[in-house]
Each structure stands twice: as C-alpha cells, then as structure tokens.
C-alpha cells in the first residue's frame, strides 16, 4: 500500500510522485506473481547465485581462462583444477565462470531488446486492430514458423559470428512470441471503459498506449521474459555448439561442449561440466518462469 508520505508531498503530489507510484504498482504486480508460487523463489535464488558467479568471475576464477599450459592438458578433476583441464591445458572451471558472462550478456541483451520491440509491435497490433493487426501478426506468424535455432543460424550465417550479431539473431527469434504475449492483454484492456473514458477526455493514441495500456500489460510481459531468457541461453549455446558462436578462444559454454565432444571418450569432464552449467541455468529460469506464468493469468482475473 502507499508508503507514509511527508505532509508536503501528500498535499501537493508532483508528477514524479505519480510516476513513482505507478511504477510501484507494476513492481507489485510482478512481485505478487512471484509470491503466488514458491518455486519461483527457488529458481530466482539459483539464478542469482549464477549471476553473481558470472559477475565476480575475474575475482574468483582461479586461473586466466585463456592461459594455456601444455604440460597440464586433458587432466581430470583434481585439487588444483576442480573441473579438470582441456586440450590446451586451460582450467575448465575458470572457463565456465567466464563463459557464464558471455551467455548471460547475450541472453539478457537479446531478450531485453526483443521484449521492448516485441511489446511495441504487439501493443500496436492489438490496440489498432483490424487490418494493422492482421498484417503485423501475419508477419509475426511467418517468423514464428521458423524454429528459433534455424532462424538464428540463418542470421548468424549471413552476418558472421560476433556478440552483437548473436544478440540480433536471438532477439529476432524472440520478437514474435513477445508480440503475441503483449497483444492478447492489450486487446482485453483496450475494451475496458477507462480506455474509452480516455478517448472521451481527448487523450491521444500514444498516451493511451504508453500511459494506460503499457503499465497494465507490463507485469505479464516481464514475467514471460524470464522463460524466454532460458530459451535464449539455450539457443546461444546451440549456435556455439555448431560453431556459430562467439569466436574462439573466448570461453562459451556451447563452444566448450563442442571442444569437449572431440575427447568425450577419455576426458568426459570437458563436456560434462559446461553441460551441467547450462542445465542449472535453464532449470532455474524455467522454475522461476513456470511459477510466474501460472500466477499471471489468475491474478489478472482476480484484479477485475
């Protein structure tokens, strides 16, 4: 509920006060969605640990991820190298920690931009309806028809592998689902009376979309973002696995699995540990997102 205000702001609330309050309701919407299903907290806890490890990689990684030591190549896990070493004698643990940075950066950037662009597209389609809707959504359907890996593959193959291009490729695959996610609640909200009241008060379409519809669909879209982050990380790893990831020798999880695959019979740990890393991150995000997804629909209904 509203926090206690000082006497001055309570009497003459400024524009900023109202923006802050509106933002707080969106935050509360997301929080409620979170709190409705306790597994979300478990997923979040795991993900936060992973994110912290990635951020702190330069400090906590025991070795430089690119440092080669031919004398210690293909060593099994030991006290000096917890996760063993690879073909060039690089420390697997350090490479996994640094690889987490690449995966998370690409995933977050890609999903962040897809969320913004997709939400805009979906909101415009849903708000204006009719032919605009038909045209936009048919383009989105065409994009949706491609499996995301294939679409990413085509883009990276055309543009060449780099972090920027991977972000573009992955966000392109995630825009259509976000536009669908944003469109459905937009349609239900634009038929509510407060939008018609807005027309009667002489508000512009832009204002109605951004001030009145967006805050109401934002929790739903943000919640779905966590599920799609898992997909983005998986697609990035898959692209790296087939050799279309960030160029070696940069450490990426997909790339490490690919390299480990060549020696899978005698050095299983090379493929095992990065696979486990992907598993843990995707699992935590799915836990988080599934709980949230269950919460979003009934919550919106209950709020009416």
């Amino acid at each position, binding site marked *: 509920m509203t926090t206690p205000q000082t006497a001055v702001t309570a009497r003459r609330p400024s524009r900023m006060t109202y923006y802050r309050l509106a933002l707080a309701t969106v935050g509360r919407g997301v929080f409620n969605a979170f709190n409705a299903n306790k597994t979300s907290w478990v997923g979040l806890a795991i993900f936060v640990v992973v994110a912290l490890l990635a951020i702190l990689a330069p400090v906590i990684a025991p070795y430089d991820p690119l440092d080669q030591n031919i004398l210690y190549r293909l060593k099994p896990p030991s006290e000096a190298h917890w996760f063993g070493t690879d073909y060039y004698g690089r420390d697997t643990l350090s490479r996994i920690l640094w690889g987490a940075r690449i995966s998370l950066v690409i995933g977050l950037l890609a999903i962040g931009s897809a969320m913004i662009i997709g939400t805009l597209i979906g909101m415009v389609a849903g708000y204006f309806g009719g032919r605009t809707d038909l045209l936009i959504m048919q383009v989105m359907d065409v994009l949706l028809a491609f499996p995301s890996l294939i679409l990413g593959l085509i883009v990276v193959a055309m543009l060449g592998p780099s972090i920027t291009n991977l972000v573009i490729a992955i966000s392109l695959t995630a825009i259509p689902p976000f536009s669908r996610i944003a469109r459905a609640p937009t349609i239900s909200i634009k038929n509510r009376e407060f939008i018609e009241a807005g027309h009667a008060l002489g508000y512009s379409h832009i204002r109605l979309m951004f001030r009145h519809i967006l*805050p109401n669909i934002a929790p739903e879209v943000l919640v779905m973002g966590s599920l799609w982050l898992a997909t983005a990380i998986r697609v990035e790893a898959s692209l790296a696995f087939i050799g279309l990831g960030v160029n070696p020798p940069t450490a990426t999880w997909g790339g490490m699995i690919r390299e480990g695959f060549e020696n899978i019979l005698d050095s299983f740990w090379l493929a095992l540990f990065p696979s486990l890393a992907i598993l843990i991150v995707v699992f935590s995000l799915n836990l988080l997102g599934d709980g949230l997804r269950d919460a979003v629909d009934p919550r919106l209904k209950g709020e009416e």
Partner: protein
Amino acid sequence: MTEPILTVDGLTTSFRVDKKWQPVVRDLDFTIDKGETVAIVGESGSGKSVTALSIMRLLQPGSSRIEGSVRLAGTDLLGLDEEAMRDVRGGDIGMIFQEPMTSLNPVLKIGFQIAEVLRRHRGMDAAAAEAEVLRLFDLVRIPDAKRRLGEYPHSFSGGMRQRAMISMALACQPKLLIADEPTTALDVTIQAQILELVRELQKEIGMAVMFITHDMGVVAEISDRVVVMLRGDKVEDAAVNDLFAAPRHAYTKMLLGAVPKLGGLGDTKTPRRFPKLDADGAGPEPQNEPDTRGKTLLEVRNLTTRFTIRGGLLNRPVGNVHAVEDVSLTLAAGETLALVGESGCGKSTTGRSILRLVQPAGAEILFEGKDLMAAGHAELRVARRRLQMIFQDPYGSLNPRQAVGSAIAEPIRVHRLMDDEAIPDRVSELLNLVGLEAEHALRFPHEFSGGQRQRICIARSLALEPKVIVADESVSALDASIKAQVINLMLDLQRELGLAYLFISHDIAVVERVSHRIAVMLLGEIVEIGPRDAILRNPQHPYTKKLIEAVPIPNPAEKRKRGALLTDELKSPVRALDWVRPASRMYPVGEGHLVREF
C-alpha cells in the same frame, strides 16, 4: 401452530481471510411459513446471498464455516451428509440465480436440461419427463412450449431464460424456492412479468419463497415479510406493511429514504435532491431545485448510427443493427434531459454517438453553434473538453495502475489548461468538490468503494470544466444509499456550475428525481419526449405507458392490480440490408411534448 417450512436459527457463516475466520453473516434468525414470501433485503456486502448459499450448503467447505441450525420442515440441513444434501438441492429446495445468461449450459437443449432434473430427482422416464417439462413450460408461460423444448439457451432471451430457470427450480415441486436477485439483470417490463409469475405460481402451488433483493420496490411488490440485513446482521424483521409504514431501525429508514417513489414529484418541473441520509435514517424531504435552465447548448438532429453485421463465407455484410434511428433532441445549459429505455434500445449508443466515440452514419450535432460532425480530429478534442462523459462501471472506468490524483490531473495536462505548478492545487480542489479528501490523490482506484470511484470519475470530467456531461447509467451499479448521494452531488454541481446532463438510465424512478425533461427510446427511436411531469403523468405512447406501469412501487399499500400476465418481449433492432425505415413523424400533444405515431 404448525412448524414453519424453513427455520434458520443462530446462523453464522465465516470465511477464512488471511488465516482468520471473518464472519460475514452473524447470528441470523428467521423463519418462512408455508405459502409465505420472505424478502431478504440489504445492500451489497450485507451477506444476503451468503445466507442463501449457506442454507443450500453451496459454499467451499475449506474456506468457509457454517454454524447454527437450518431446519427445512423439521430436517436439520447442516447435519445431513453430502449425498442426502444433493437430494435436498433441486428436490426440496429450488434455487434461481441472478444471471440467467450463465446459469444454463449453452451446449445442451433446454428441454433436456430440465428433464435431467426430473429424471434425477423424481425418477421419471424420458417420455414422462418430457410431458412434465411441457406442463412446466406452460406453467411459467413460455409460449410455443413444444418447439422451444428443443432449442438451445442462446435462442432464449433473458426473460425467457429466467422463466426456464424457474421451471427447472419448480421441476421437483420444492417446498422452498430461493430466488437470489432473479430480476436484477432484467429489464423493468420483464421484471414485472417475472414478479407476477412468481406470485401466481406461489398461489397455485403454495410453496414458500425466500426472495433476495436490494430493490425496495420489488420488496413491496412481492413479499409478505421482510428481513433487513446490514453487514451480516439482521437489523429488522417485520411484516411488509409494517415495515414500510413504520420502519423501526435507522438503517431501514435510510434505505427507504433513498428509494425514489415514481410520481412523488407530482407536477413540479425541476429536479429534487434526495433527503439527507445518515446513521440516524433519512432527513426531511428537500425542496425542488431552482430552475437553472439557460439557452440551448447542444442540438442533435436526425442522429442515425448503425453497426454492420458480417457473416457468411466471405464475411460480407448481411444486415445492420439499427442502434439509433433519426434521433433529434436539444439540451439547454443547466438542464437535465433523461434518456430512458430498456437494454438494447440504443440509449447508450446515442450518448456515445454525440461524443463521436462511435461514428454516426448521419447526423447534425450542433454544440455551442459548431457542427461536431464536420469537426476534424483537433477540433473534436477541443469540443470534448466541453462535452464530457461519465460511464456506468465505476470499476472499469479508472486505470487500475494510475493513482487517483494522476487520473484527475491528466486531462488538465493534456489540454494544457494550466501550469504544472498549479495542477496539484486544482486536483485537491476538485477532490474536495466531489466530497473526497486531498489526501486521496495518492491512492489507487481499488482502495475506494464504488460510490467513491464514481465521484473520482466525476472529478476527472470536471477537470476540463465541461458544459455538458453525458452520464451513461452512471449510478445504476451503485447501492441505493450511495446512488442517492451521487445524484445529490450531481444536482449540486448543476446548480453551482450550470452543468447540463444527458442522463441515460433505465431506472425511471431515479430519472424522475434528476430530470427536467425525459425522452423515451424504443428500438433506436425516440417515441416520446417532453417535460418530465407531462411524460410521467400523461404518457401518450403505449410503450411509455407500459414502461411506467412496470416500475415497482415501494409501497405495499399501493400494490398494483395488474392485468393479464404478458409474455411479449422486445423486438430486435437487427434489420436486413435493404430495409427501409417506414416514414413516421412525431406530433405535438402539449407544450414541448412530442409523441411518435403508433
């Protein structure tokens, strides 16, 4: 004395809220005798529906708790096991609900659904059940019963569905019929038919009826005895004549004070406020408002709005809904013109068309001398500053994620009516004007009650300093006492600011309190328009007469002698593409009183 059919003793129903038991009905006692109709009256949240659900034991067992005793003809219902209780539901007790649109299964034929009840509770075979359903349909006066048995619910109108629901409730010759707001969702003429039907059926079958309603007019029409509830407590239990003649409890007095009595204003010409209502009951009846009418502000000529129905394989137009046909009206400054009619008559579309929220097919809308139909986007935005609208649903017309102060400030900012610096003071001023506190600006709509939200909507409209407000069923969703307060506010604002209202409503009794003039709409056309007293005291068009006759009178002493039970229903305004409206004109019958040919 024989035992009553239903004896409720010390009934307390609690819901589990935040791990605590919150009582919603407290220590309720009442009885219903054979052949008696007891009305349970109260405003929303008074626990009247929960009482019915408790008697039927239809509440979620985990989250609710029922204490006390409920005895139906000697059997303790609360002690029965679930299996035996299922025989009671639909067997000994029949129930009808408020929403006839959703209480029938849409994919099963109506006849089948009723026959199912007969087979379940009376063990009839298919042929006997069908014969019995036919008899029941005749009983509830569904015309052409044989054909209608095989139809699906969607081809039944609201009134017909409610009849079907009643026949289903009666299927097992229940000892008790529980009717939970059965007429609230229906039009007033249909309501009159259903009330008449329940009364006649009771005479024929002699069952006991528990009738839940919020409408004192309906209470006076149907009940023998009244139980008044307030926030879970019974505050009064009296015979209907005693209750209306001499209410004892302050809350009952207030409820009765908030009920407008049709015809109560006699031949006066101006609106009249509701008496002051507070914890002590109702104050004295106030004087009529002074006549504040000025010169004409809004003139609508030949307004026509149609919606195309598309269908078929190619989605071509197959027909038109003639929502508004050739409507002409004028509105002066400081005047209230009421637009009355039943659902689907086009009154809301008329209001929306005047603001051009829907695009009329043709019209001349002169507002302050300018034709709105010819106005471009920018001109229209300017015009909408002076021509505002208040909507029906106080829950839906505010953005749930926008603080109230922001909602009121937004129109001022959009139309650049004042500096940013001055806006907060103006917001406080507007909140005070509608009877709210400046501190409420920081709260969100869900923290307010329905009446308060409607005040917020009014404040938001007033922010633009409008001249005309279109109020589309603005008080219909509110409880009677709240309704009276909001209407008093609207009348105060009219006196102080010279506002003109186009007051769209289906509730003629309320319309009498607020309006100077009344226009009656039927199937998209205005069939009668004129000064209030002329329309109400000297109606000319048969539809106006029917409409006024159907309004329940909150006075059991004046219970109407009605004629034969009518079963006619409104026709539909859907027409074929090539339909040409037959020429008809309106002729004057008095000063400013026009009636359409019939």
